[in-house]
């Protein structure tokens, strides 16, 4: 099958790719299957050798590993290290892999025993503080978003296959939103992290009149102090701002600062 594709007259080797999931909803992998119109073209670019959600055959000989989810148990850290040892390129797929995602919301209690009891009572269950992949292994590339955006994955994978440079927008979602000529959500009374969140989603949520919750993490030089000022001016509560900043883990540092500043008794 190799050598069927060429680019500028140069034959392309189809990289052998594998998909794995740790603690996650598996939605990012599903987003790849959700590319109905271009799925078959996309699959012709690569050779999928491991994708448990979609296929029974599996091999551990791969060039690129896409890993969805965060690390929340010792066996997952071991699996991740084994994947890292096999892969030439390790890609963190989605917010859980990049920042811990919604899973890291449990970290805010700083009391895993309480978290376990709240859900499982006295039944013994193993879990640990949720970590992004980069806390355990070296990550070569991040694909941001909850969920990932299929067009962006296709572009990134195409560039990987062609050997072209991959870069993320340095500017915030706000720029994309303004370019789409959307009504500013602050004017509709809706809090939004668009001013500080890394673009690349084409202002997916704000274009649907849903404020940005920061799933793609901070843009370069994100001005959080300015955001805090905007939120205060618009009458957005510190609680609503913290809800958004702490949701996906990309703004964990700022969320920790806000949380300790507030200490408003929201913890159980």
């Amino acid at each position, binding site marked *: 099958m190799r050598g069927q594709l060429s680019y500028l007259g140069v034959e392309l080797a189809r990289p052998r790719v594998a998909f794995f*999931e*740790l*603690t*996650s*909803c*598996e*939605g*990012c*992998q*599903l*987003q790849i*299957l*959700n590319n*109905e*119109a271009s*799925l*078959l073209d996309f*699959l012709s670019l690569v050779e*999928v050798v491991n*994708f*448990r*959600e*979609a*296929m*029974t*055959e*599996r091999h551990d000989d791969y060039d690129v590993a896409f890993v969805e989810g965060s690390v*929340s*148990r010792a066996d*997952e850290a071991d699996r991740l290290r084994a994947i890292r040892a096999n892969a030439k390129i390790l890609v963190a797929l989605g917010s859980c892999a990049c920042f811990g*995602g*919604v899973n890291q*919301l*449990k970290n805010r*209690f700083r009391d895993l025993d*309480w*978290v*376990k009891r*709240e*859900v*499982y*009572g006295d*039944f013994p*269950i193993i*879990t640990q503080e949720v970590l992004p992949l980069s806390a355990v292994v070296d990550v070569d590339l991040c694909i941001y978003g*909850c*969920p990932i955006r299929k067009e962006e994955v296709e572009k990134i994978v195409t560039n990987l296959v062609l050997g072209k440079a991959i870069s993320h927008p340095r500017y915030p979602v706000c720029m994309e939103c303004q370019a789409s000529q959307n009504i500013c959500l602050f004017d509709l009374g809706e809090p939004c992290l668009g001013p500080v969140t890394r673009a690349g989603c084409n202002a*997916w*949520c704000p274009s*649907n*009149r*849903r404020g940005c*919750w920061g799933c793609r993490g901070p843009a370069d030089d994100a001005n959080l102090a300015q955001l805090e000022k905007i939120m205060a001016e618009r009458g957005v509560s510190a*609680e*609503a701002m913290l*809800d958004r900043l702490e*949701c996906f883990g990309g703004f964990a540092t700022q969320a920790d600062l806000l949380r300790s500043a507030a200490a408003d008794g*929201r*913890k*159980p």
Partner: protein
Amino acid sequence: MKLSCDIAVKPLSRVEGHGNIHIRIKNGALEEASWEVVETPRFFEAMLVGKHWENAPYICGRICGICSIGHTLASIRAVENGFAIEPSSQTAALRLLLKHMETLQSHVLHLAFLVAPDFLGTGSVLPLTKSHPEAVQRALRLKLLANDACDLIGGRRMHPTRTVVGGFTMLPDKAQLDLLLRRLRAAAPDLAATAELFASFTIPDFVRETEFVSLKGETDYPFIGGALMSSDGVERPEAGYLAMTNEYCTPASTAKWAKLSRPSFAVGALARCNNNFHLLHPTARAVAESFGLAPVCHNPFMTNIAQLVECVHVMADAARLIEELLDRSFTEPRQPVQSRAGLGVGAVEVPRGILYHAYEFDDAGRILHADCVIPTGQNHANILHDLEALARSWAAAGTPDLEIERLACMLVRAYDPCISCSVH
């Protein structure tokens, strides 16, 4: 005759999440049949504690990548029931349409990509793109149609953006709704051809009596809210869901299991069909009858056929809903929300069965306690008991190892388990 075998499938492929099957037969007797759920828990119910109500649907939709719309709608319903908010008829129609399109995309994904390879002797859908290109293209077209519809109404096919407590942030464009209606009508032959493909498969012949739990329809085949029922005659109001679920922890699983009148019960497309067969659209009922599916059917492999029947039902009902929506003037998308203390329960039929979200709120509308009961969690015990019954008959019949493994995997896949969801 083969009398002994030791089969371990670790983890099972072509399902959502991580589960292991183990079957050990010695000298013609079953020694062990196990269904182990090893997925890592995420603790969504703890995450929500202390959070303001507006967070619940946004966070809880992320319990599942496949049925994020169903989780979002169940979460919204729980909040609205807690605050005594009645959705407008426009909101209710749009939510049901959105729900139908999620059902269609999820069932088509399961049938064409996860189940069909078993019947056609391949390990994935990839070889089928060569051997059965038209069948694959048909499934892709149906899935695309359903996903495009979810984008149109929910703002996004996964982790929807427009669905909020009180209604929607934005309404779909009517011209786009009209286009969707025409696409739905044009897709009927694709679904008919998919049904023909499944008619050519031999569904394994296996019957084990069990109890089926679902919403109870009054005038319509039920999807969003209403009374709860079981085929053994138990009935409860929506808020009395705990009497239907009776969750418990078990050492072989990080998911909680459930029981009602018997040691296990089943939820999902087959349970819905069994309990509400008379409310299916006539075209869907005709398809069911052509496959010999009639209530009460106790063959779990027929869940696949029940999903096919539901695809026919939701496509017909979606067309009706769009016609109604096109005939009316749209009103405000979103009604105001006033929180209050108390308990709110939302029950929604998601593709894999009945899903419950329940939240207890304080005076300020913050969550004191949350509970989510997942369809696959309710099915785990039934899957195990089916596996045991099947393995016992294989042991007695001396079925070859490979055939046991194939059928065991097919059985679990028939339930379309969403394992990470069950270990939320």
